[in-house]
């Protein structure tokens, strides 16, 4: 971690000016929980680091017109301290409870977690299910892209040089909508997910009107599994259908072997956890509950 220039602009526009024309020679510093170790390791060598920490206007949680708007610099601890998130975005709330540990949560930001684009990013998975969009600002203007399109490849996003992710916005799910989140990790704290599942289920008169299912750590990016959602839509959800949905999720995952688990295990867990979380969020009898006999 040697020899880079450092700027700490007081406003977003100043930050945008600072990075304009810098090509790929700069890095944006938000919470720094990944960036700073990467700088130290020599994994990255930017010429310029622009710290957004001084931009107070990027730190907010607001409800407006049925939508939740979260400033990119909002920390995970800010989210945990927000009754608005707790009441109106239970899925995100559930997910952040297992985010690293308290120390990291005091620094890590929503924007940083998304731009980092790890397949295991703990906020990305619920936000994908919530149909979140991210606002990308540049000196030329702004564009809003669906989070579902935002992640393009392993640790790659649609962000172009000169752009800064300034806000995450998602429609607040109506109260009737059920949600479920589960993070399978090797420890109860400071764990990187082996597989994580987030889902929203809209059940009207026992029929699934809509479903959103997202998975973490099972593909190069956090992933919406639309084919699995389609299994549920328009149908009466019982354990059998939930199982089918889980199998479809597994089929559409493309996990890898790494130090935490094998690809096979992850694929199996897609099926198991999607099945289980559907049953759990809807309060339906989960059967069969037996040791996994196949597919692994």
């Amino acid at each position: 971690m040697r020899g880079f220039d450092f700027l700490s602009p007081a406003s977003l526009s100043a930050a945008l000016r600072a990075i304009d024309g810098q090509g790929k020679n700069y890095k944006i510093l938000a919470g720094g929980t990944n960036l700073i170790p990467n700088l130290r390791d020599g994994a990255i060598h930017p010429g310029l680091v622009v710290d957004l920490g001084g931009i107070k206007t990027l730190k907010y949680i607001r409800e407006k017109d049925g939508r939740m708007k979260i400033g990119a610099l909002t920390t995970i601890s800010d989210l945990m301290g927000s009754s608005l998130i707790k009441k109106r975005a239970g899925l995100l709330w559930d997910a952040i409870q297992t985010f690293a540990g308290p120390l990291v949560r005091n620094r890590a930001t929503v924007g940083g977690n998304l731009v980092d684009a790890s397949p295991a990013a703990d906020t990305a998975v619920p936000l994908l299910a919530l149909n979140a969009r991210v606002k990308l600002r540049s000196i030329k203007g702004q564009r809003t892209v669906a989070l579902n399109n935002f992640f393009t490849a392993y640790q790659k996003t649609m962000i172009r040089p000169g752009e800064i992710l300034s806000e995450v916005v998602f429609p607040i799910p109506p109260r009737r909508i059920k949600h479920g989140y589960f993070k399978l990790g090797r420890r109860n704290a400071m764990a990187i997910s082996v597989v994580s599942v987030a889902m929203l289920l809209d059940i009207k008169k026992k029929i699934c009107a809509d479903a959103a299912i997202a998975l973490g750590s099972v593909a190069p990016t956090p992933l919406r599994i639309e084919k699995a959602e389609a299994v549920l839509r328009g149908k009466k959800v019982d354990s059998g259908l939930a199982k089918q949905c889980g199998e479809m999720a597994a089929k559409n995952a493309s996990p890898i072997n790494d130090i935490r688990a094998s690809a096979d295990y992850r694929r199996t867990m897609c099926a198991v956890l999607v099945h289980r979380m559907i049953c759990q969020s809807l309060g339906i009898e989960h059967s069969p509950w037996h040791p996994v006999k196949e597919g692994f």
Partner: protein
Amino acid sequence: MSFDKTTHTLVGKSIPQPDSLDKAVGRTLFSDDVRFSGMLWGLALRSPFANARIRRLDVSKARRLAGVRTVLTAKDIPGINRRGNMPGNRDDQPVLMEDRIRAVGDPIALVAADSIEIAEEAISAIKVDYEQFQPVEDPVASLAPDAPLVDEEGNMISELGYDRGDTEKGFAMAAVIVDETYRTQFAEHAYLEPEAGVAWLDAGGVIRIRCGTQWVENFRHIARILGVSHNRVRLESPLVGGGFGGKIFMTIEPLLALLAKATGRPVRMALTREESILSSTKRHPYIMRYKLGADAKGRLIALDADLVADVGAYSDASPIIAWYSIGFLAGPYRCENVTVHSRFALTNNPSGTAMRGVGSAQITFALEGAMESLAEKLGMDPFELRRRNYPSKGESLSTGQPLKNAVFLSETWEAADKALDKALSRNKAEIRNLNQKLLRARGHTSNMTGYGRRHGHLSQAQVSMQLDGSAVVSVGVADIGSGQRLGCQQVAAEILGLPMDKVTLNTSDSQLNPIAGMTAGSRTFLNAAGPVLRAAEPIAKALKKAAAGLLEARTEDIILADGKAFVMGSPSVTVPHAQLVAAAAAAGASLTNLGTLRIEEDLYPGEETAHNAGWLDYTFGGMAAEVAVDPQTGQTTILGLGISHDVGTSVNPQIVIGQCEGGVAQGMGLALTEDCCVKNGKTEAHDFSTYLIPTSLDMPPIEVSILESGEGEGPFGARGIGEPPHNITPSAIANAVSRAIGVRVTSLPITPEKVLVALRTGQWPL
């Protein structure tokens, strides 16, 4: 040795550690917390490859850089380029690599520079041309006749074994036989303080090294490397930020010393966590085949154990660990027909060394698993099976060594089970909410851990009375946080009848302190506080004699307590220690005394044929675990743990319980999550996001039940307790998981993935 607690004032009291105050206010200066003016930064260039030859090494560019004060390679070592080993063991590890690389992290060159930035630049300016070879990764393959040689002397660094009775005949008579193979992983000590230290030249040409270590006696190895006499090297250990066996053999001490000697300037080194994990020693993986035979009544009549250990790249502590293990392989059971055999094989993996429960944690896991299988096959309660085979005091282990002190195996098993009930009662809420479909079971285990050497042991300490009646203890033992200094202080205070704050400690300096050996092997209370006791006793006697004169009483009626002397039964008339010291001095008594603990036991029958295996004494324990296993994810949740040991005498209950709780946490890590994941000789899990030690949220309720037989070899009848709680834990958890899933757990760690495979196939995967 039996001990009556009632006549003592400090023994049995939970006195806090003397160093806790400084630690709590952030005043303790650990290895990396001192600076000298003009201090240089030292860095090592280390091999990224596990098996390679250095074709060419060019340090010329690095040497020319401004601010670089020295660059050292193997050629620049003034003395002998070997790290040294215990007498008789292979001295196969160069300090700096000559041509052959045997492990990832092998140091090739050293740099000392004005700043870390310059040192880093110099390291990257060094050119090494490596010829790479396929690393030897498998210890079994390493022993094949055509295996590539890791060391010129051969890949097997130790082969041991002994026979008792007729094992073949034993198996022929057996009603049931169990034959299973168990495996354990490479484990990292994961002390929170990475290796760090400083070295400088002192007056009189003495090289001083201040570096956290468990063994200041390593100064002799450093002298040999530097080519100077022993009196020219002084190694001192500050308080150590965790050791667990990983700081017994030298870490960076010789590197620091070489740089300080070459530059004549103070030099500092501090490893990053990655460098620490990549270059440090580990717990050996063991492959253990256990064949057990029992008659229909559950009497163990044949035991055949075969152990292959992965030594890693250098012999390090392995020969001695091999010797420890051979003594444990037959376990704490009565069995007439025994064959045990072990082979320790070099590979290009990280070197194995001592780690808490050295040479026995792995064995407890395997043997106690096999005992469970035996009970199952017999259709017998596992406790009943063990009870029929536990030896009693006075009986002998399979080696032939008689057990001279209490053997509380049944007692600790039952106490652990009760303790588990208590632990579970503290976890009611979680248990109430558990999904009924989880697979729940309770598992138990027994354990025996040795402490203290039987032969040729010598350790010393010095106690000096001050003129005002206070005392100073000097003992060359390092404190790694588990109460080593406290033990010496508490013993001296007890014997001299002083309050704790009137005894100060002077420890872990190789030139100033009498040598008391390494802080390791659950031995330190015996081997460091033991000589302190012997040093203090004659002084106490002289003080009592002086008091007897002053109080006109018999010496044997004098009691020393709280800095005063009085006659038994008349505590109101006292004489303060200051006065006693003056009187004793006037009478010609020496008020500075060297205490020596020399241990030389008689040979037990058959000792030579068992390679003199065995310990001075053993600590016996039992443990019970209750787990819930998710049959769909394979995740194991520990609902509660109960642990019990007979500690002889619990001299400081808070320390004893703290050792149990901490040992259990480490054991949980070994059981469930910790694995170095060594591939191509490289530790893949080289940070704390991949090498997973338990967090606070992973801890179930733990209930500790301490039993006191009063029989132990340490001061006041204490037994060693540093390692036993760690040794026993993986076995208890594995036995519980095995019962929950109906498949014997035969390898560690117990990952969710392995559990699922086991549930699917009925076989624990390799």
